[in-house]
């Protein structure tokens, strides 16, 4: 039976249908979770999709973190449940304190909608088990507030503890610094995605669900989507609390 993966819909979410589509391609049974519901309906993993939750008028993600569904997502994450935030979903996770760091306005002060390449730093997480470390993965970004920021001590700690999950890379696969063309938003240390300490919550700005079929120019995102679905399937057959034990190394 396909594993049930929740996709949260906030008012203003606009990548929920795309995420459902990509999860279906990966063989999951996507379950739409409305922002007002307090139950996650027993799903094995949760995706917070992209969009402009509640309009993002104050600051991206800052209102969404107070929604009823986010209380349930926080409790689920605390129990080791798998949570992936994409774009606006990453912003919501950062605002909720479920992943470290903050997403500032793009360094250009303009919306960035284009193709980028990212590379995973680990292949032993629930989100990257089907991805090769260092291989450039091409997928779109589309955001105005995606500049990853944390203080130096936090950045050092994240790197040391393996919490940097994805970096923006240039054509040669090298990390793209904040002012380099391969880095779409000025993110510090080229960080495109991070993990929480326990390793069961991840957020990234690029859109793997938009790179799910070759006809759209790239299916490089499916490695990430499939990793999540396979990990969720494993979690569904595993006692709660053990899923995120890939953890820090």
């Amino acid at each position, binding site marked *: 039976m396909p594993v049930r993966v929740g996709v949260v819909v906030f008012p203003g979410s606009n990548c929920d249908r795309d995420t459902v589509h990509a999860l279906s391609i990966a063989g999951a049974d996507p379950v739409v979770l409305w922002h007002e519901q307090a139950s996650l309906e027993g799903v094995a993993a949760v995706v917070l999709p992209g969009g402009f939750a509640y309009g993002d008028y104050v600051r991206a993600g800052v209102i969404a973190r107070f929604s009823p569904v986010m209380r349930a997502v926080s409790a689920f994450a605390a129990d080791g449940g798998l949570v992936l935030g994409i774009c606006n979903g990453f912003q919501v996770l950062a605002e909720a304190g479920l992943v470290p760091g903050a997403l500032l306005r793009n360094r250009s002060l303009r919306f960035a*909608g284009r193709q980028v390449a990212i590379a995973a730093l680990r292949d032993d997480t629930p989100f990257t088990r089907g991805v090769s470390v260092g291989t450039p993965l091409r997928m779109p970004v589309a955001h105005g507030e995606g500049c990853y920021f944390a203080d130096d001590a936090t950045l050092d700690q994240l790197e040391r503890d393996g919490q940097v999950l994805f970096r923006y890379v240039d054509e040669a696969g090298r990390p793209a610094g904040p002012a380099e063309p391969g880095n779409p938003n000025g993110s510090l240390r080229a960080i495109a995605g991070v993990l929480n300490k326990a390793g069961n919550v991840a957020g990234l700005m690029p859109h793997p669900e938009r790179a799910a079929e070759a006809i*759209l120019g790239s299916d490089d995102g499916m490695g990430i989507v499939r990793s999540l679905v396979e990990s969720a399937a494993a979690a569904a057959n595993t006692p709660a609390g053990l899923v995120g034990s890939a953890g820090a190394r």
Partner: protein
Amino acid sequence: MTLAEAGAVVEPLHRRLGVTDDELEAIKDRLGGRDPNDLELAMFSVMWSEHCSYKSSKPLLRTLPTAGEGVVAGPGENAGVISIGGGLAVAFKIESHNHPSAVEPYQGAATGVGGILRDIFTMGARPIAVLDALRFGDPADARTRHLVDGVVRGVGGYGNCVGVPTVGGELVFDPSYQGNPLVNVMAIGLMEERRLTLAAAPGPGNLVVLFGSATGRDGIGGASVLASATFTHDDPSKRPSVQVGDPFAEKLLIEASLELIERGLVEGLQDLGAGGITCATSETADRAGTGILVDLDAIPRREPGLEPFEVMISESQERMCAAVTPEKWDTVREVCERWGLPVAIIGRITDDGDIAIVTGGLDAAGGPAAGAVEIARIPAAALTSDAIVHDRVAEAPTHSRAAPAPGLTDAATDRLPERGMDPGAVLAALLGSANLSSRRSVFTQYDSTVGTDTVAGPGHGAAVLRVKGTTQGLVATTDGNQSVGALDPWLGAALSVAEATRNVSITGARPLGVTNCLNYGDPTRPAAF
């Protein structure tokens, strides 16, 4: 000072509202010989504007071919709809928002996107793509750069937020657009053909339901002379005439509208654009051969103190008007409230063919409540299908521009060298031309991939979208030829159609339909017309 006094000391009120003396006579004729009151005059002034009535261009536009294989809905509806087989259909339309964008480029462009998207989902189609066709003056000019920057941010700010990809368009600089940019936005939607929903208000006794944003004072436009006549002192509550967009509200409106249509909860649906509630009620009633009794007090407002004419012609954005049977009202309200949208019954459909407006409320049976006052009554047709049509005089302009050199773009813009000069210098001039340079800095500000249907996005001659669940693709482009159009309008238009057809054909697609957006000057000037 009363309105009448204000009119007496300056010019007659109708002229100040842009209604000519001849048109006033035509209005009286349609009201059985009586004079319109101020509210009625305001409603006529908006509905008989060029923008709403096409009173000058209608006779010409009627000559265009509109029937053909696969045409499900043509002109007269909110958007054209063409069948693509397999029970699916495509809704598409292009519209301009030039003047607001010249005044306030961000909001002008943003609300242009919002308006055209509403035309698409009103039909029951989910918007899947936007294209923007832009014209500006000299790119070296600071004002032009301000306009370009604001318009591009506005298109992106709105389209990106509602989650509809901007997949193509045009950006052309020409001195003739100096200070007067063209902002044309096309939207495309995909629908199940059986979900086609028309902008009609059928069934006397049915409810007229308004949902979406509350009504405010924005977008009153030229009719604000009525307000300034009333408020003789400084009025701190004056709002700009350019509407302000709220893409978040639009996103909720899309989802709520499509859910209402999907569940069969509405008998007809119309978005509110130019002319606001006046336009939505009169057009839907006229199409269905009905009338509407408007309960003015029931219309949700942003602020107290709005005058009846302001409520009736406000162009506040992100609003929809639906015809709903009384049995389905509770479910309609539940859907709107779940999406966080204000919703109210603002009137009843009648069988008298009139748009009548009352203050003081309606009774349980849907008629005016005891003590209610009727403040306006106009035949719906008089505002729409029976609006005035002018037979304008057209003559060729006396001025003529130097023809551009063969194969080169407009010499005036690009300062190209004369023929016979060094080919290397010609090449260098072409490479340096703003009209041939990369548009990447523009289209990277747009989300072109949301929706996961974009096969070929910005930077191509035409955009290609796949249709999920089928093996089909959709191809769309916008093209125009202002240089030839200025010299020879017929040839310019023909070349534009030919260019668009070529851009579609070279992807391997068969052109299915054409929609046009014609931007011209004052139609009362024979040369412009």
